[in-house]
Structure formats: C-alpha cells, structure tokens
C-alpha cells in the first residue's frame, strides 16, 4: 500500500467514526430528567402477556368511554428490561403497573414520583395494610395498590378420592399425600409415573426462594426480620424447621417431580397440567389454564395446610406506579381513580379472559361474588386472615435469589446434614445484600 492510500483510508476511517459519533449523539447527562407533558395520550405500561393485555385494553376502553381521556396502553412481558431502555432515553412511560415487589428497585433507581394518598378518590376503601406495602424506605408512598392475591394449594381431587385419603390439614398430611400419589398409582395406568408435588426448585429468578417462603412462615421462620424504620436483618437461621420439611420432600423419591431442582415454573407447571403430579402451590392466575387442560372437577383448591405455627401463605400483587417523567397530573389522577374504583376493579376481573385484578384491593368489591366461583373465597380468606408479603421497600430480588441458591444447595445434597450451616451462609448473604442497600439494622 502506498502512503497516499494509507493516509486516505485513515481519513475515511476518521470521518466515518466522527459521523457515527454524531449520529449516536454521544454524551450523557447525569441527573434525573424533569417531568413534562408532551401533549400525547397518557402512556401506560403493564407487565402482561397476550391474555392479560387484552383485559387491560378492554379496561382502558371502558375508561376512555367514561372519561374521554385517551390512553396509550402497552402490555410488556419483559417489563423491567424494557423500562431500562426507556430509562436510558430519559423518558419513562407515564404510568407503570407492575409487581408490588418492584417498588424497592424502582425507588432506588429514581423512577418514581411520590403519591399523595389522600388525593386518590376512595383511598379509604383500600385497607391500610395494603397502603403500608406501598411505602418506600423513607416512609413516603410510592404506589397505589391495584390487585392482590395469595398462593393457593391445589390438589388432584380425583386422585385423592381414589386413594381414599382425606383433605390434608397439616404439612405432615401434605407430605403423606404426596408420597401416596407417588407410590399408589393414583391414575391407575399400572405404571409408576406419577409424583407428589410440583415444585419450581430452580435458582432461576429466585423461584425456589419464592415457592419455599410460605412453608418457612408456616413453621415460624422467615428470610428476614423487619426491625422498623426501613431497617431489616437476616433471620434465615431460625427457619430450620420449614427448610428441613422442604428438604425431606426433595429427598423422598417421588414426593417432588423429577428434575425439580432445575425446573423453573415453565418447566414445573406442566407436570400438574398433564396429570403427572397431584399437588401444586401456585397463584390463582392458573385456574383458567388448569380448568382448560385438566377440567374444573378434577382438582380442588384447599385451605392451606398448617405448619407447626400457622398456615401463612405468600401474598403478592400489583401496584400502580407514577413515574418521575410523568407531567400529566390530571390524566394520571383520572386513571388511578378509575383503576381502584369498584367499577375499574370489576372490569379488571371480568373484562377479558384472564383477570388482571385477582382479588380486588377495594374492600367494596367481593371477589367470590364477581367471579361467581367459591374457589376465590379461599384466596380472599387467605389474603385477609393468613397471608404475608415480601417487604417491598427494599429490592427483594437479590434476597429471593440468595434464598433460592441456598435452598437449592441444601436440597441437592440429601446425604449431608447441611440445613443449619446452609441457612447460616444464607444469613451472611442476606445481611451483605441489606448492607449494600443501606437497609441493614
């Protein structure tokens, strides 16, 4: 290559680099952008698959018909990833409807505006306990409750009756039933191809920690302790009884489905759906798909069996979040007021195939009556009397993840006496995480 050619190619390279830099608009700001109204319809995002998104669309259609306010709704299955992209462009959607557990993460990223609870019409119809779950570490309110639910225990009724066993009342009963399902051929096909419980025991997205929490609470344990004033400390060491029970299920062949330790819910749930397992602890959102695949008469929703302490189950839900870049004050208020009103809540339950409001947060609405389905009474009662939720002021995701990893380790080694030591390690991991979030007492 002669020198002229070299210098020319160098110049061309420099030119293309420069133009690329121009095009990408290099350079980044370093403070949170301000809220402003761009005159477009209010943009609402919700974590929703196709079915749920249809319900949302129907709901907002009703809202627009009533108020004349246009809504640009998007159902986003991978909401958090997409939010990050929008955060990078400093323009978040105006309203986000997502898990109540997302609150800690969102506030730490500066995504949210504070909400004046008293400005929400009908705020006194929402129980104080739910409002409390929308508080950030600083005690301010950062979300509006929209929907709640608890985990429920589903049992294959036909299998249980065929084997002549009673509805399980305690954790021991549940374990016995699981063993019977695994060994006594409840489907009567002459093959040992049925198992007891469906368990998502994978560490992926912390599934194991999520599933196990109910059983831990039932035996008086917990991952962490709320020390007040937005401070927490690890307490997993006190959960030996529950974890031991869980480990027993994994180490009794057949009590859990094969491959449970690497199964996320997507891999685990089909075992119940296709009649390979007879017990599942899951959310009521699965009713419709189980009704379709198994049949409504084949399974029952039972009151959660008691552990040594009580029958607490995990409660979860969705909140309405107002983002920091939202400058549409009036429209936002109208959307929120409608979503938590009796009409809005009912529409969320019935407007589409899949309910987006599971158990209404508005105490004026009765889930069992709206659905005309006594199974929802079980959910509603559990929510009212014996449920607990993960703390939402902190970012609980890493803690759930740490719990899943620790439990997965404990349950994968049946020969070892590792419950106490494994939980001690979990305590260390949780405390480290709390410290890094400035939430360690």
């Amino acid at each position, binding site marked *: 290559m002669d020198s002229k050619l070299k210098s020319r190619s160098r110049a061309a390279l420099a030119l*293309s680099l420069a133009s690329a830099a121009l095009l990408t608009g290099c350079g980044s700001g370093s403070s949170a952008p301000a809220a402003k109204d761009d005159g477009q319809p209010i943009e609402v995002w919700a974590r929703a698959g196709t079915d749920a998104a249809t319900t949302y669309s129907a709901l907002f259609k009703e809202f627009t018909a009533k108020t004349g306010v246009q809504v640009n709704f998007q159902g986003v299955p991978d909401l958090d990833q997409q939010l990050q992209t929008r955060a990078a462009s400093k323009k978040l959607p105006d309203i986000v409807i997502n898990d109540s557990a997302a609150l800690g993460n969102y506030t730490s990223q500066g995504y949210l505006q504070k909400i004046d609870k008293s400005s929400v019409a009908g705020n006194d119809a929402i129980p104080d306990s739910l409002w409390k779950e929308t508080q950030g570490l600083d005690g301010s309110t950062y979300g509006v409750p929209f929907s709640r639910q608890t985990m429920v225990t589903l049992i294959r009724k036909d299998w249980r009756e065929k084997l002549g066993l009673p509805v399980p009342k305690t954790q021991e009963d549940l374990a016995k039933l699981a063993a019977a399902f695994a060994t006594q051929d409840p489907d009567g096909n002459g093959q040992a191809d049925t198992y007891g419980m469906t368990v998502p025991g994978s*560490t992926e997205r912390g599934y194991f920690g999520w599933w196990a929490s109910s059983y831990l609470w039932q035996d008086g344990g917990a991952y962490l302790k709320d020390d007040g004033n937005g401070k927490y400390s690890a307490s997993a060491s006190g959960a030996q009884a529950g974890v031991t029970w869980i480990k027993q299920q994994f180490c009794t062949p057949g009590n859990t489905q094969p491959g449970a330790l690497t199964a996320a819910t997507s891999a685990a749930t089909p075992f119940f759906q296709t009649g390979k397992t007879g017990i599942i602890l899951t959310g009521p959102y699965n009713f419709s798909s189980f009704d379709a695949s198994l049949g409504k008469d084949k399974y029952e929703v039972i009151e959660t069996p008691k552990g040594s302490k009580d029958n607490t189950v995990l409660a979860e839900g969705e909140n309405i979040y107002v983002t920091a870049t939202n400058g549409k004050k009036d429209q936002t208020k109208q959307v929120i007021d409608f979503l938590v009103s009796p009409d809005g809540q009912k529409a969320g339950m019935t407007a589409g195939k899949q309910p987006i409001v599971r158990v209404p947060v508005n105490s004026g609405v009765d889930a069992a009556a709206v659905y005309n389905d006594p199974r929802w009474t079980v959910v509603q009662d559990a929510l009212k009397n014996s449920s607990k939720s993960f703390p939402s002021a902190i970012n609980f995701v890493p803690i759930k993840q740490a719990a899943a990893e620790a439990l*997965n380790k404990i349950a994968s080694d049946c020969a070892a006496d590792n419950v106490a030591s494994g939980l001690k390690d979990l305590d260390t991991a949780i405390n480290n995480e709390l410290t890094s979030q400035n939430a360690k007492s």
Partner: protein
Amino acid sequence: MTTAPTKPARSLTRAPDTGQAPARRKLRNSKQLLAIWLFLVPAAVLGLYFKFIPMVEGIRLSFFKVQPFLGDVFVGLDNYVSVLTDSRFMEALGHTVVLGVTQTLGALVVGFALALLLEGQARSLWILRTTIFLPVVTALAVVGEIWRILYFPTADGPLNSILGWLGLGPMQFLNGTDTALWSIAVVGIWSGAPYNMVIILAGLTGVDRSLYESAGVDGASIWQRLRYITLPALRPSLVIVLTLAAIRSLRSFTEVYVLTGGGPAGSTEVWMTRMYSLGFQRNDIGVASAAAVLLLVVTLLLTVGTQLLGKRKAAR
C-alpha cells in the same frame, strides 16, 4: 458505481497512452478508491453500529455504577474488583474451563472420527453427513429442550431406559450436582462435533492420495498413516477448529441456561450465566460489563495464543 466493473477493459485498450497522462490516471485511481469505499460503507456502518460502538460502550460501562435514569457514576476499577473477588464468579470460571476443555476436546475427537468415517463421494455418505450435521443448524434452545427430555432423571426417561437395558441404575443427569456439568458437556459435544467434522472433511480432501499409497507400499499401518500423513496435513484445519471451539465454549450460555439454569446448587453455573443473572436479573449492568470485558480479554489472549502455537508448529 458502474466505473469499477468497466474499468479493466478500458485500461487494457488505453494501455499505450497511459504514460502520457499521469493526471488522468490519478483521477481514475481516486475514482476507483471512491468506489471501493462506497462498497465498503454499508458493511462498515453496520459493523460500527452493531459491533464496535456497543463494544466500546460496554467497556465504558464497566467503569461505572450504571443507573440509566439517575445518571451513571464513575467507580474506577470497583466493578472489576467485585468480579474478581466474587467467589461465585470464581466457581463459574472453574466450571467454564472444565466445560470448555471437555467440550472442545470431545467435539474435536468426535468430529475427527466422524470425518474419517464419512469421507467419500458416495450418495449414502452424503445423506449421512447431512443428517449428522443437523444438530449444528438446529436452534440451541430447541436442542436443550430435547435433551432435557432425553435426560429425564427417572427409570422411564429415554436415556435411563437404555441404561436400564444394560443393567445400569437410573442416573440423575442434569439433576445431580456431580453429573450435571458432564451432561451439559455431552450436549455441547453432540451439537459441536458435526461442525468440526465439516471443517476437517474439507481438510481431508486436501491430503495427497498418493502419499497414502506410497505409505501403503512401504508397509505403514493404519495408525502410522493417520499419525504421519493425515494429522500433519490437517494442522491448519485443526488450528481453526480448536480456536473456534475454544471461543465458543467460553461463551457457552444457551445450553446451560436452557438445561439447568446454572443449578443444581450452582454446579453448572458458567461465566456467561453468572453475567446474565447479574446484568439482567439484578440490573447490575456495571459489574456484568466488567465481567464481559474480562471474558473478551481472555478470549483474545486464547485466540492469539492458539494462532501463535499453530504458526510455530507449522514453522518447525
């Protein structure tokens, strides 16, 4: 754009008088250059946008606490320190190396054996080669789901029933902490070997047949022919295969993610799955970027190392 293809013909006819018109030649030269650059621009822009800018951005992010909304905060080498001092990352590194070495060597040996078995022109061989190549063109996620079924850890699982006929007990495969990593390696070999086979097959066609014949006349055994004729002739192909395989195994993600998600008890967690869960499940983009940069450096060193090794051997 039409100047480039017509140019050779013109320069041929005008050859005699070019010496008298250097200015015109210069003009033509620059026109030619312009054409070259114009043709390069689409690829260059695409490469720039989808490869190099993201890469530079990734390197930049590795020095920041990434908060897309509040603005990134410069933290120096903190992210690198937290990667290198994280015991889970170190465990993941161990698994990655074990998985990488097993998969690379396994796929090489199996690919070599397949190539030797399936070399030739017959139609039946052509069909067989196509069949065996299928795993390479199948989406890895699909391959993973199929192997999850094959590995079903009860006595009536497909692979376990075969083991049962041989009188071997049902194995845990993906569900056991001791067997999970090896089970993944087998999947990697299964899907990687046919690719190697094709490269080696191409190399085999370049081996001079007469060498085999003369070796046969001299009474060389099959093993000797392999050792002293085939292998040396295949050196360039083997270097390519080794380099590609090493890079691929360091980056292995899909098979692990689909098959075990890193479990049970973290026994199959590799560098990429750890990076993924930090970056996209914990939103710790800075630390994940630092891990990615480290992976890039290691890959670069490994590639250059293999190339140098191949060159030195070839020179000897």
